[in-house]
């Protein structure tokens, strides 16, 4: 059961790094985790060696270590963002069909993804803006969205133009249906599902103010 809502109004919104730290707190020890390209990679900085978490990168590795520097850089060892990384003791390499079997087959515990939009029921839009001149590129986003046991999304709650990214129905092309279980933003943490959006925690805003700014029915945990 979810704990009662916690409103942190005596502070400002969370920064990117604070959102990453908040997500890391919700990843249980012993989890196999995939961190999406971009901001979700920040979560790794808050999963210390004692966290007991094994990182998966979909290009074919479990036991991924931190980014490589200097002499550690090896063009044959990169993450899904094509950034050179390192291997930890106990690491394993595998080919792409096995790597995605780990997702699709339900073996991965958590993935953390960025998003353009998320619906209150957990629909995800994060691969394509639908703009007519945009070149579509999906990568592993759809596989991750439907594959991991829990899909966490990390994003700002509002776009730069002020529009909310938590919506009743996504208007951008979908990545996956009813797949996001938790949404972590600068202003609030939500649980999403068939019952709609439940606010778990707020930062720099009260529940009532949050509800007034979103066109989505909310419930307080």
């Amino acid at each position: 059961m979810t704990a009662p809502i916690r409103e942190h109004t005596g502070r400002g919104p969370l920064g990117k790094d604070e959102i990453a730290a908040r997500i890391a707190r919700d990843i249980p020890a012993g989890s196999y985790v995939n961190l999406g390209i971009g901001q979700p990679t920040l979560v790794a900085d808050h999963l210390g060696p004692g966290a007991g978490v094994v990182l998966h990168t979909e290009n074919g590795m479990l036991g991924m270590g931190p980014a490589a520097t200097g002499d550690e850089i090896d063009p044959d060892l990169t993450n899904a963002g094509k950034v050179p990384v390192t291997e930890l003791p106990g690491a394993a390499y595998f080919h792409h069909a096995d790597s995605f079997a780990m997702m699709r087959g339900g073996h991965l515990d958590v993935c953390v993804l960025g998003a353009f939009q998320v619906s209150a029921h957990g629909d995800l839009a994060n691969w394509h803006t639908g703009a007519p001149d945009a070149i579509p590129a999906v990568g592993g986003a759809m596989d991750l969205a439907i594959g991991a046991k829990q899909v966490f999304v990390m994003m700002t709650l509002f776009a730069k133009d002020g529009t909310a990214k938590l919506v009743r129905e996504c208007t951008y092309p979908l990545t996956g249906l009813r797949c996001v279980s938790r949404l972590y933003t600068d202003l609030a943490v939500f649980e999403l599902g068939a019952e709609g959006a439940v606010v778990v925690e707020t930062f720099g805003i009260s529940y009532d103010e949050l509800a007034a700014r979103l066109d989505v029915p909310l419930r307080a945990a």
Partner: protein
Amino acid sequence: MTTVCESTDEAVAGIEDGSTVLIGGFGMAGMPVDLIDAVIRQGAEDLTIVSNNAGNGDTGLAALLAAGRVRRVVCSFPRQSDSWVFDGLYRSGRIELEVVPQGTLAERLRAAGAGIGAFFCPTGVGTPLAEGKETRVIDGRAYVLEYPIKGDVALVKAHVADRVGNLVYRKTARNFGPVMATAATTTVVQVGAVAEPGDIDPEVVVTPGIFVDRVVVVPDRAGATS
């Protein structure tokens, strides 16, 4: 049986116009750049290329695209910061694109190599990439029907082969190599070194030689021969 070729030109000989060519690699890791350069010299055109990306920078797959040899690209992630060759061709309508989710791409290749006629896959259900495809609910979950992708030729980079074609790969450069090697009529592999039979421990062989038709040694340029 596996032939050890003397040159990359010999390794890619005979690729016909209109072929479907599977090209391994994830970005530049595992990309068989020297085999692609040989295909450019070989001259085949009107090709369909199946690869995770659609070329980076101006070398490898990007150079093949720039040479005007490719009619169609099947990939998961064409758009990158350094995919200017593909971007230009696409925006001017000179190349066709089929975007496939990365895991579905791998599984369609695996299916081709394993003799599977088609399979139901949960990835992409309810998204634009499932439009027009047959769907089915199995045990309460929705799936999309996906078909195999078979290649006429696969171009793969591995770390070491032995003379009978057994392959080992290196770190995340393995990526699509093992599945693509199974999925083509003719599989061509560039390796850093060729060993004698028995030099590779049978327990660590990743791709058995039955899937490998031609091997050619190309010393690695990026320090990956150790």
